[in-house]
């Protein structure tokens, strides 16, 4: 179980500071897929970087702490100080535009044995890796290729293979399928779901696409302006969204077969995109396990 305690993460820009994440308190349970949604600039990627332990200037932690509640490879608990040593082993990261994150000038197999602290017997690791990528639907020859020789979907699979090879307890996937088309996207998402069910670990998925969230996640976290707007079980959030921003996100995209939006022109969606919301840092529990930023409800009642 990962606990975020009143996390505030800022960026130093010259003499100014920008609070990208502002007062986030959360508990992420084990063995589940948590989806994080919100628009660009809402602090999603910053929060993910902080959980990954990749806090580098100009980004800094100005308040709060993270309790990982995870055991590292050597059995000692993971803390914010030693989290870097656990990268790929206990915590791994599938970065945004991960298709371009493979080293272009060395073969894939060299990237597999490139981790610090990998089993010293490289031959054995490679054998296991070849076997593993086969299970992920990649040909064994892909190991001997350079990244540019693989298609986008294959590169994405390879990144997932790298990120899951050591069966980490926590995987952070930042927009894992944005650059892919729908057919390949479905394959990749199905693969992620299958792996998660097998490993029983926690995956945090950042995505713009509410459809992707509905398909893969157990819990949803909606962010806006650096704060948590809503957090709860995916079914509950989609069936009964509490905050107007969440509602707008869910309603904003048309669905095939749903003609209601065709006729009336989704004016709400258009207007909603430009509307600004005020989000307070305190969350209230409206239903068991379903939290929403405080004033939203009252405000909405006033509006209605």
């Amino acid at each position, binding site marked *: 179980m990962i606990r975020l305690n009143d996390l505030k993460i800022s960026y130093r820009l010259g003499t100014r500071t920008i609070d990208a994440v502002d007062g986030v308190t959360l508990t992420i349970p084990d063995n589940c897929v948590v989806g994080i949604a919100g*628009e660009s600039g809402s602090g999603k990627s910053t929060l993910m970087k902080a959980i990954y332990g990749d806090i580098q200037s100009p980004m800094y932690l100005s308040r709060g702490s993270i309790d990982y509640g995870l055991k590292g490879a050597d059995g000692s608990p993971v803390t914010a100080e030693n989290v870097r040593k656990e990268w790929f082993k206990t915590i791994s990261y599938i970065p945004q535009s991960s298709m371009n994150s493979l080293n272009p000038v060395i073969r894939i197999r060299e990237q597999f044995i490139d981790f610090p602290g990998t089993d010293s017997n490289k031959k054995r690791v490679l054998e296991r890796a070849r076997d593993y990528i086969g299970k992920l639907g990649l040909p064994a020859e892909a190991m001997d290729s350079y990244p540019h020789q693989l298609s*986008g979907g294959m590169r994405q699979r390879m990144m997932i293979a790298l990120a899951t090879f050591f069966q980490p307890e926590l995987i952070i996937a930042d927009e894992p399928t944005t650059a892919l088309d729908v057919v390949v996207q479905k394959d990749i998402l199905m693969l992620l*779901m299958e792996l998660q069910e097998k490993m029983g670990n926690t995956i945090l998925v950042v995505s713009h696409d509410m459809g992707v969230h509905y*398909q893969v996640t157990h819990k949803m976290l909606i962010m806006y302006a650096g704060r948590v707007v809503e957090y709860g079980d995916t079914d509950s959030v989609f069936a009964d969204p509490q905050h107007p921003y969440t509602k707008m996100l869910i309603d904003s*995209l048309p669905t*095939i077969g749903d003609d209601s939006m065709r006729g009336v022109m989704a004016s709400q*969606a258009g207007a909603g995109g430009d509307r600004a919301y005020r989000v307070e840092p305190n969350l209230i529990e409206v239903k068991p396990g379903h939290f929403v930023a405080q004033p939203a409800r009252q405000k909405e009642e006033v509006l209605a």
Partner: protein
Amino acid sequence: MTLILKTENLNKVYRLGGFMRAKPIQALNEVNITVESDKPVVIAVVGESGSGKTTLAKTLLRLEAPTSGRVIVYDDVVAGPGAIPSRKSFLGLVQPIFQNPFEAFSRYRPVDIYLEETARRVAGMDGEAAEVAVADALKSVGLDYDQVRGKYTAQFSGGELQRISVARALIPNPKLIVADEPVSMIDASRRMIIINLFKRLRDEAGRSFVYITHDLATAYYISDFVAVMNKGRVVEFGPARQVMSDPQHDYTRLLLSSIPTTTSRWRERPRRVANG
């Protein structure tokens, strides 16, 4: 009935690789689309990466010459044998909107310069008339000239900048606007602003659109006709609702079943967490 868009046996072959061992890639393979309608329409072209949809857009925009075949837009041949020779009159008929507005405009020039230049060079206006045309075009996309004047791309959000590129495309009064993935670089929550803008321009300003996308949901929402492309061929073409609610080709069905919807799941997601 007006002929809005017609492609006749359109083929485009790219050659990849070395001079002697060049490998031909058939990006467009006998593409035949005919759209006739009394009213302006939105024609969606959908398909995976590499299906040829961008090549089709480039051919419609004369950025690539077809290997054979021709394109007719509102009774004028715009590509292939017999195409209207003048670039200026072509740009007065067909205008582009590109995927990434941050790349479409230079970072080092104020964006309103592009609008003014389009008014002067393509629409042939001078001084005051150009100024008025730019202001009108910006107004029709919901922006004020003063909000835009003298500003650089970095000072706008993706959605605003894409609205400016729509405004730029409107200045020469084109009949057809070819939009290649116009919303894929924009936040999901703001995409509908652009999509609804297209809809309004079709209904109120009488523009037709070719909307190239891999997002079938917005294609369904906005388009009157849809062409599904796979490996350079148009595998299915027809009225949008008919194609998407009753797809005939296996590939169309595969595409439709791959969309992540918020109504039904691909697979069960067992909740193994007792309390979270």
